[in-house]
């Protein structure tokens, strides 16, 4: 049962852990519509974040999650998936 959504704080921490990208959670929230590559996150880095979340929550995320272009788009898809049918 998923009771909390993945937050910008958690995404920022994952970007650091999985891809070595340092970003302030506040800035990530404010620039949530900016493309991931503007933060220095490449497609393999996002794939690593998807894998971390899948392991953490024991759930598969849809193939589209690793194709998301922005933090907002990614969190919307991830949280919709994690909360739906949980």
């Amino acid at each position: 049962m998923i009771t909390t959504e993945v937050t910008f704080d958690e995404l920022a921490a994952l970007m650091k852990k999985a891809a070595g990208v340092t970003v302030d959670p506040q800035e990530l929230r404010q620039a949530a519509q900016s493309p991931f590559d503007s933060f220095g996150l490449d497609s393999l880095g996002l794939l690593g974040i998807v894998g971390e979340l899948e392991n953490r929550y024991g759930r598969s995320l849809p193939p589209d999650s690793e194709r998301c272009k922005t933090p907002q788009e990614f969190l919307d898809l991830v949280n919709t998936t994690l909360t739906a049918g949980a």
Partner: protein
Amino acid sequence: MSTQRPRRAAVTGIGVIAPNGLRTDAYWKSVSEGVPVLDRITREGCGHLPLRVAGEVRAFDATALIEDRFLVQTDRFSHFAMAAAALALDDAGLGSGDPAEPFSVGVVTAAGSGGGEFGQRELQKLWGQGSKFVGPYQSIAWFYAASTGQISIRGGFKGPCGVVASDEAGGLDSLAHAARAVRRGTGTMIVGAAEAPLAPYSMVCQLGYPELSTVDDPDRAYRPFTADACGFVPAEGGALLVVEDEDRARERGVPVRATVAGHAATFTGASRWEESREGLARAIRGALDEAGCAPEEVDVVFADALGVPEADRAEALAIADALGAHGTRVPVTAPKTGIGRAHCAAPVLDTVAAVLAMEHGQVPPTPNVSDICHDLDLVMSRARPAELRTALVLSRGLMGSNAALLVRRGGESAR
């Protein structure tokens, strides 16, 4: 177009990360003084393996030199390569920010060992936790091409890039490849090799080589050309060079440290050391021919010095075959006996030593070696002062590649 003389490939920058120095000046000080740094292997997880002695790069702090986003996706061999490339670019006066002409700068590296430590970590996750725990950067980090890719991405270089996978001698082949790219019109090439073969998985991969020395005394483990030769010891680290069009370098006002004058490569089969005599001799002749260089013009030879009696004999005979009587008179050296053989990076480190030897007018010595049993003038206990204009660097790989590279002192207009 005009009928100018052929473009020449000039060495204008050098970056070294080696067991005996984390900068070029430190490397040369140790090499010229003949200080051996071979020691018992201390890297984690290696203590139970029968390979005891190697040249470790200690006190290298990748986190201080390379950004996190590159660190997480790369192995130690690429950390060495990126750090050495940055030193070389600084040395060439190209270290600041984005290149003015990114499409005129290319990268070529050689690699033999790949990213074994990174790969082992991810494979342990695969078998320990499952496939979903393997990180995506496993797809690129272990791969021979990783260092070329990461150097080009980090520097914003968009010129012709490549990777030479031709065994240990590939280190020399990469320099030749870069020189050819420059002659064909690419402005600048960043070229060389770095290896990190001292981790458990990587070391186990090497244990099958009959040429590997498992002697546990650092002073006796690697003594080529002697009656006690018992194989080679590996090393980690490497060197990257900036090679550019000589005219362009002079226009930029940077010193031309050396020119890449000639190269040739042959193949005679894995561990067929007796046959490497002819292969190496032909490579030497090919390099001399390309450079338009007579055997007598060679002022110093940096030997491959494998440390296997049959291979040492083949090399001594190859030098005599190719250089004639001059082969027994020319000073020969093998500074790698002090640091070990860093696979593809070994001949690149030798090329750096050759350039520095010409600049300093000194043939560096061959540490830990005395009483040789071959007809060579091997420089042993201390550096020998000499006027050096042309240096020949030799390399052979365990899989059968042979290569020779001829470099000339900067500012010389031979040919």
